[in-house]
């Protein structure tokens, strides 16, 4: 929910002009041990989406680790939507609150990251100061430095990788569609067995973005900002395809699950046989937790699927910057990365370059169980980059226009 503190100042007096960031915050040039010392005793308010209990569990584990090791506590502020945290920082800036902000760390990417970066709301660049940042796989995983075509420039630290996979129930689906046009044919043959979350949700929007990649006449244009002239011709084939497939979706395309977990519940109940997911390990983890039947498997499309990285960023006015930096560094540590990749925990892939790790750290990853429904790195292939965030905003608006009666 949004913080309206700024309204107090706005209504009492003219809002203080937002002052520019001081040139170089001392924390950005201090040696790391000083940062750790400054962080001791702080409570970091980490604003992160709270809709998935596995991620919530991971954050709780991280809290245990950093509090015993560094004396830093993490308070997980559960959001229904990352946009809430963005709005809060925006509001605080408008009220002239340049420190002591209520958001210390925010799990962010895509349009939200772009919004904060453009509005000068991020602290940093701080990633280069983190000791564990040297292990980030910037060549093999370019999404760690370019988020949705926007250069990160050290203003946000990556902490997990995501790539689109499609999950299907191998007990009932023998030959899942490997391309977008094939998906239309499959939906026609199996009406009501495919759906996607509402496009207001990031996963639902990505369902359409993935289709757009294959159907757009010129995919290069997706790397640039969408304009009125480019949007229509690029998306026309997408909408044709969508209007054709929609009547064959679950509930005849009139109703959509709210988010990823809701969609997963539908597959578990047997209401659908095919669904999109951002987590290559989701299927294995769900099987382990009894949230999906043991027969589910994953696959990617022949032409590749979109992948991105999730980041944590520190707002410019965070009250506990040192603590936030310590937490961000911990998240990049091999221990935390391996724990997150464990299919029994979250199952999300690491952002680290395994070949750069010392052998004992690399062993952590090699010990991890793969999961019966998880593809290998080779099978996943190189992920397609995300389009510019402006495409998503327009797609969401257009979808809403078409779908609501």
């Amino acid at each position, binding site marked *: *929910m*949004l*913080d*309206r*503190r700024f*309204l*107090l100042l*706005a*209504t009492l007096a003219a*809002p203080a002009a937002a002052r520019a960031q001081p040139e170089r915050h001392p924390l950005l040039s201090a040696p790391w041990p000083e940062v750790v010392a400054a962080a001791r005793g702080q409570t970091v308010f980490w604003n992160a989406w*709270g*809709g*998935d*209990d596995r991620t*919530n569990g991971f954050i*709780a584990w991280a809290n245990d680790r950093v509090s015993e090791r560094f004396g830093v506590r993490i308070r997980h*502020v*559960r*959001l*229904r*939507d*990352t*946009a*809430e945290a963005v*709005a809060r920082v*925006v*509001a605080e800036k*408008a009220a002239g609150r340049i420190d002591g902000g209520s958001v210390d760390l925010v799990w962010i990417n895509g349009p*939200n990251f772009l*919004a904060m970066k453009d509005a000068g709301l991020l602290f940093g660049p701080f990633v280069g100061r983190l000791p564990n940042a040297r292990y980030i796989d910037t060549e093999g995983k370019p999404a760690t430095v370019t988020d949705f075509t926007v250069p990160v420039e050290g203003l946000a630290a990556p902490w997990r990788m995501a790539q689109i996979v499609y999950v299907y129930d191998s007990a009932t689906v023998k030959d899942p569609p490997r391309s977008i046009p094939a998906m239309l044919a499959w939906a026609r043959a199996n*009406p009501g067995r495919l759906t996607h979350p*509402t496009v207001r949700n990031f996963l639902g929007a990505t369902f359409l973005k993935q289709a757009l990649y294959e159907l757009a006449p010129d995919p290069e244009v997706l790397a640039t900002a969408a304009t009125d002239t480019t949007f229509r011709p690029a998306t026309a084939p997408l909408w044709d395809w969508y209007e054709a497939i929609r009547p064959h979706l*679950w*509930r*005849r395309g*009139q*109703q*959509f699950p*709210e*988010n*990823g*977990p*809701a*969609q*997963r*519940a*539908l597959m*578990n*109940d*047997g*209401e659908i046989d095919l669904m999109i997911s951002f987590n290559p390990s989701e299927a294995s983890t769900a099987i382990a*937790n*009894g*949230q999906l*039947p043991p027969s589910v498997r994953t696959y990617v499309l022949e032409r590749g699927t979109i992948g991105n990285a999730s980041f944590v960023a520190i707002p410019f006015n965070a009250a506990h910057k040192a603590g936030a930096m310590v937490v961000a560094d911990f998240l990049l540590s091999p221990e935390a990365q391996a724990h997150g990749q464990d299919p029994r925990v979250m199952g999300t892939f690491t952002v680290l370059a395994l070949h750069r790790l010392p052998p004992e750290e690399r062993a952590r990853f090699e010990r991890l169980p793969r999961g019966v429904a998880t593809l290998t790195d080779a099978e996943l292939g190189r992920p397609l980059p995300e389009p510019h965030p402006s495409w998503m905003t327009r797609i969401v608006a257009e979808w*809403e*226009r078409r*779908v*609501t*009666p």
Partner: protein
Amino acid sequence: MGTAGHALSGAARSGALLRAAPALTSVLFLGPIGAGLAGTALPAFGWLPAIGGEALSLAPWRALLDAPGFAASLRVTLTTGFAATLLSLGLVVLFCAACHDRALFRRAQAVLAPMLATPHAALAIGFAFLAAPSGMLARLLSPWATGWTRPPDLATVNDAAGISLVAGLLLKEVPYLLLVTLAALNQVRAPALMRAARTLGYGPVTGWLKAVFPVVYPQIRLPVYAVLAFSLSVVDVAIVLGPGTPPPLAVLAVRWFLDRDLALWFPASAAALLLAAIVAASIAAWHVGERLAARLGRRWIASGRRGGGGGAAASLAAGAISLVVALSLASLAVLALWSFAGPWRFPDAMPRAFTTTTWDAHAGALAAPFRATVAIGALSTLAALALALLCLEAEARFGLTPGARALWLLYTPLLLPQVAFLFGLQVMLVRGGLDGTLAAVIWAHLMFVLPYVFLTLADPWRAMDPRLARNAAALGAGPWRTFLAVKLPVMLRPILVAAAVGFAVSAGQYLPTLFAGAGRVATLTTEAVTLSGGSDRRVVGAYALVQALLPLAVYAAAIAAPPIIWRNRRGLAVA
């Protein structure tokens, strides 16, 4: 002389304070509502300087009307609102008319009261588990009766017409209206009127409708309006059971209020204000309907038609009410079942295994919202009790008679859509730097707890034998001592019941926690509604079950306590 004068003026001062209690309570309680409405009305016309709204304009209204699905949203709001109210009132009237001489009627009060303690959201979540195409009912019938090995592609919940929303609303509204009607029947000497009607040759149903209903309805008019207002503006049940594209107007407004794009606050405020206008207009339309019905009714009464034995109506009514009760109990039971379930796939009627892993895994996460719910509930109920008792005492001591206007004032927060004034209330809280604090949430809850506590307590308090107080005074006890040592103990049972009711109301609040707490305060209800979006049914079941059982436990304690406390005082132990 001097000391006596001082004592007198001291008494006069505390007397003046007490006398002002009703007025103070109104201010404390209605002030935020008025300010809240203003705080929502201004942005509805474009005025919110802090985010760039510098000039009054109709742009928010244009944006609202242009929003995709606005017309459908409006239609769904009106149809579900009126349908739920008409159906629940109709069921209650049918039941009272047809079954008033049956034994189960007398027991109904005891059975229904605990049902009211369950929060709406928990019942809605449980009902969704029952009614979904992959839900309990389908599983029980599959595949032997229906031939389904996979869930059918039927929209039985979240359907666009709002039928499941209406069903979910009925589960709470029917018991509420029935309890209110039963209380009113006690006051209008219904059995005597029925005796007159029956011996004049009128069948039980027709007699009740002609002789008793017209006398009872004015007593339940305000609760019916409250049900209408609630059905039109409910958010948490609509999120769980109602259509999603487009949702009812209240959900649409909340969605926009929570959006990252701050510019959406303007059409959100417009939508909230529109909803307030819709509720007001609907209540007015209902009032016109009452007059019409009264006119037709009088003609029907004057015709002298006697009506039949009413056996068919009685079976129908008893069956319908039993269905409502059964569905409510089943909704709770299925929550419990899911929370202890191991792997469970359609179409198995029972889980393959039972396990406590869900509880073990989430007990820690449940602790914080549990504590918050208990703290907020306890404190808001205590505050409401204190205010209600002070007002009632002031009434008794100074002979203030509450008029109909006082009753309407008390009902105001129940008749206004929450979303219409909670946004503005948050603005007020920000002025005081209080938003996001527990205190703010408690105050927001107080606005809804107080009417229920007051209404539950008022009748028993006013019916208290005045001679008790007079005797105490004659024995030399001052008014405060009488209050503390005589009135409170005698009224312990009604006070505890009122407290249980207040706690249940607080435990079920969703929007006030969300707005006043600025999303920082998590209660069992906010967590359950958030998770109901789609997490694992086992986790949702656990959260919703705790959310449901907590107020029930409080209610049970409130009922069980007086006989224990008064075990040596038979006069007080029994109601």
